[in-house]
């Protein structure tokens, strides 16, 4: 079967039409959206993309990582550092960034899986590595230490150096989000994807029937780390600044996990729906909190929303929508 055929096999025609329309709308969106609308849509796509990357590890292979900021931070810092110090463009720097993050993922994964840490223990290992790196970068002069690393803001569109206005970054993150979606679909349909699901459901049983558990977990963490590093590079060039305090923060890692968990772990649309819900709520709460003059009120709304969602839709929003409207994608 051809690749396209395999990707679309078993998908209802109306779902394909829906996807096509959505993509077309996203492609022309910058022409109709104002500055604010575009910035919100960029955030949605960013969280959908990193959510997709994180979902590979947790949603597919069942390995809880709470330290994904490590990969995004490493990626961003390496590409930005190469650009800042040597003028190496981000497309070239991307290779170094992805390689470093994949290597870091391999180290964390190897140690975690080799010493068979699971669940909370593995999550803590990922946090520990991320925090360790944060403090190291705080004291490393080449990347600016705790004072941060700043790229020169330049709004003239320059695709080669990834310098430009929001529209350029919009199309880059859109391409990434679409690419990650297709990649995840392909992975899920592959033998590797089936192995991951088997491991997620019962690692011992999978091992017993001959699934190469250790190798599959390693592939999951390396792919997930590499994809996350790309988001880190994009993020560094979009915001033009990097601080260890935020780039490697545990809060950043947690941000990455929210969209897939809220949307529906292990589903393809979960991270996308979750990103829409969370970013939308965030914007609404920002407006709402301006009515009150209390610090922290926005986060209180946010916390309440998370609490309500996890109490009433613990499996995520997307499986519930899909069930209701008969789209049929269930958590596999």
């Amino acid at each position, binding site marked *: 079967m051809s690749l396209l055929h395999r990707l679309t096999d078993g998908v209802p025609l109306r779902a394909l039409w829906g996807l096509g329309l959505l993509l077309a709308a996203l492609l022309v969106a910058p022409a109709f959206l104002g500055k604010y609308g575009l910035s919100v849509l960029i955030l949605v796509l960013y969280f959908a993309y990193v959510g997709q990357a994180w979902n590979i590890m*947790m949603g597919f292979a069942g390995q*809880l990582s*709470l330290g994904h900021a490590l990969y995004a931070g490493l990626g961003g810092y390496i590409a930005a550092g190469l650009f800042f110090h040597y003028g190496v463009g981000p497309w070239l720097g991307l290779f170094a960034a992805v390689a470093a993050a994949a290597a870091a993922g391999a180290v964390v994964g190897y*140690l975690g899986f080799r*010493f068979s*840490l699971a*669940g*909370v*223990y593995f*999550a*803590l*290992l990922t*946090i*520990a*590595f991320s*925090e*360790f790196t944060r*403090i*190291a970068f*705080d*004291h490393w002069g080449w990347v600016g230490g705790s004072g941060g690393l700043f790229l020169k803001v330049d709004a003239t569109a320059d695709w080669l150096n990834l310098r430009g206005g929001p529209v350029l970054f919009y199309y880059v993150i859109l391409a990434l989000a679409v690419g990650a979606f297709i990649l995840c679909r392909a992975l899920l349909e592959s033998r590797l994807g089936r192995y991951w699901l088997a491991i997620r459901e019962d690692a011992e049983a999978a091992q017993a029937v001959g699934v190469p558990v250790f190798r599959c977990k390693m592939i999951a963490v390396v792919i997930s780390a590499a994809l996350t590093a790309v988001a880190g590079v994009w993020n560094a060039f979009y915001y033009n600044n990097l601080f260890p305090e935020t780039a490697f923060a*545990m*809060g950043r890692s*947690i941000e990455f*996990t*929210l969209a897939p*968990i*809220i949307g529906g*772990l292990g589903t393809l649309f979960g991270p996308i729906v979750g990103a829409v819900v969370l970013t939308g709520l965030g914007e609404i709460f920002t407006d709402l909190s301006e009515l009150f003059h*209390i*610090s*922290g*009120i926005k*986060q*209180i709304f*946010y*916390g*309440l929303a*998370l*609490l309500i969602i*996890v*109490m009433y839709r*613990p499996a995520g929003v997307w499986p519930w929508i899909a069930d209701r409207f008969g789209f049929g994608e269930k958590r596999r």
Partner: protein
Amino acid sequence: MTADFLLSLAQAITKGLLTGMVYGLMALGLSVIFGVMRVVNFAHGELMVVGMYLAWMGFEYLQVSPMLSLPVIAAVFFVAGYALQRTVISPFIGRPEHQQFLLLLAIAILLVNACLAIAGPDSRGVQLESQFDSYELGPLVFDAVRLHAALTAVVIAALLWLFFTRTRIGKSIRAAADNHMGALVVGLDVRRLYAFTFGVGAACVGAAGALMITIIPVTPFLAAEYTLLAFVIVIVGGLGSMTGALLGGLLIGVSEAVAGLLLQPSLKSMVSFGILILVLLLRPQGLMGKRGQ
């Protein structure tokens, strides 16, 4: 090595041991909650910070010393913890870890931002009269507040040990932790025991907060740091082990103080995370944990 250096090292270790006792009490709460109901309390540092704020408010507005408000705070935390477990957390027992994580994360966000909304982002501390007092033992100097806090933490830990070994309800909780099904079979009200356990764990961390405010001032941003610290301590000591939590607290307290002396103070938590990584890899059950737990 000069005598001066050795003295300052000994001084740092003493300071670390004293702070470490309070850390240990904080971690004890986390360990008890996990050990019994297998729920990972990601809002632990937030509870600690709430305890610190309550003690600060008692001092600021009612002129009550944190040492005196401690029993009240512990009692309030017990009731709040009991109610929280009964209403919100109970349905999540036995659910996948990521769901528990999200639930407690939401609670953590609510708690820390409630502190921010009420007390603001500035750091809040208490000025005790004993602030500048100290005891001397040979060449070593003990800060009075730190020593009082450490001793109180030891007393509370001892009370907790008595509770778990000598009282009927304490023994029932341990039974439910050892064998959930067995506890149900012999007719223990496990759901009530779980709520009780969460109350006890919360009371521990609330008391630790009241002690900690006498040592350092509080800001809402400390919360996430304390959550991580509590995790590091219980993993190093052995998740679910009471002596492990105390020992881990001492170890991390000392490592922070010594790293602050030998390296830079800002590098102190890097050493703690380094220790965590080593323990996870070499002895994942923790220093005092049993294999297969």
